[in-house]
């Protein structure tokens, strides 16, 4: 029996789908090479560890449902967790540089590029304030003009989706990512916590010529 045949036979034995013939083959081979019994025992031990590990890893699936209490809801028991983690992943990425922008007090106003009065809400032809999307566009356009908004990233991060109550389409909750710009006098880096758990900040100076 060559090593490939041995692997195949061993695999059959591990699957428990063997009949007498396979056991007889293995026993016969093990008579001339007793180490095969050891190999079989170790393979069974490894197989158990593999099954155990995969079962643990995939047990997450048991918490994922396509429906819960109501007919229309497809959000799962772990969706809240998944959504929270999505947000964390996003904020975690944004916080990757561990830089704290101290802008609340020291925020310097970037003078607008022109003096266009953009404080007027958008109104439609009937004189009624438009939809939130119009206000959002206004915010983007105004921000771009005065330099505080760079733009909106095209990718939207879906947090939750469920069939609409009327059965047509889906209600989707998502994050829109806006790139903004501001100017601050200093940058601080979080380097740890003090005894009271308060963040320890040190002034941060990016390498010259690197925009971070």
């Amino acid at each position, binding site marked *: 029996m060559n090593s490939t045949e041995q*692997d*195949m036979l*061993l*695999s*059959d034995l*591990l*699957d428990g*789908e063997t009949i007498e013939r396979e056991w007889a083959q293995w026993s016969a081979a093990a008579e001339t090479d007793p180490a095969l019994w050891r190999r079989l025992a*170790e*393979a069974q031990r*490894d*197989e158990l*560890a*593999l*099954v*155990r*590990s*995969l*079962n*643990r*890893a*995939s*047990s*997450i*699936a*048991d*918490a*994922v*449902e*396509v*429906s819960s209490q109501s*007919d229309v809801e*497809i959000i*799962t028991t*772990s*969706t809240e*967790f*998944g959504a*929270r*983690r*999505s947000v*964390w*992943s996003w904020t*975690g*990425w944004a*916080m*990757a*540089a*561990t830089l704290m922008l101290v802008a609340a007090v020291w925020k310097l106003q970037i003078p607008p590029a022109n003096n266009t009065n953009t404080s007027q809400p958008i109104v439609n032809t009937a004189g009624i304030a438009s939809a939130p999307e119009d206000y959002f566009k206004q915010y983007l356009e105004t921000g771009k003009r005065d330099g505080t908004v760079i733009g909106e990233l095209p990718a939207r991060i879906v947090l939750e*989706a469920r*069939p609409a109550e009327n059965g047509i389409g*889906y209600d989707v909750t998502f994050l829109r990512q806006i790139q903004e710009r501001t100017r601050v006098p200093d940058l601080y880096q979080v380097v740890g916590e003090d005894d009271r758990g308060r963040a320890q900040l040190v002034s941060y100076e990016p390498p010259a010529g690197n925009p971070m």
Partner: protein
Amino acid sequence: MNQQPGDRQGDRVVAAALEGDREAIDALWRLHRRWIAAVLLAHKPAMDDLDDLLQEVAMTMVAKIHTLREERNLRAWLRTVAVNVARASARSARSRPVTPSAELDSTPSPLRLHTGEMERDETTRIMELIAQLPENYREPLVLRALHGMRSRQIAEIMNIPEATVDTRVARARRMLLELSENGGATSAVDGAVSS
């Protein structure tokens, strides 16, 4: 292929699901979610986002199951959905900026919520070994080990011959053993071919 009573009952559930029966879809999902998790793990062995990927497969199932033409193709269809979701996620992960410190994301992974430290170590170690196997060897191995699927079922799902399934499972087991013994290096992995 002889059809068992359980198969006929399963066919009725699939037929109801295709008609949009919510309970049937729910039942189908519960029946298949474990092996779908196995397929996801085989194609993207990172466990941290497994629940998100499962959610995506579940949502696709709800939204698209009516497009399934033949009831008996359900498993193969679900497998295709899972593989596509896993690959899209892997592509997206590759294009995402690398976080300098993983510790910044303090949210515990699902695995951490479910298991103790020693179990976690074993699972992490074995999943890392599995990740080193060639992709086409991983899937039959995890389906066999996790779900106890027969070669015939795995062959149907993956659309490959049964003999190929048996060969890949046997070789994958040999590779895992070598990886485990040699601390992550094996000649069998290097020499693996698409059989």
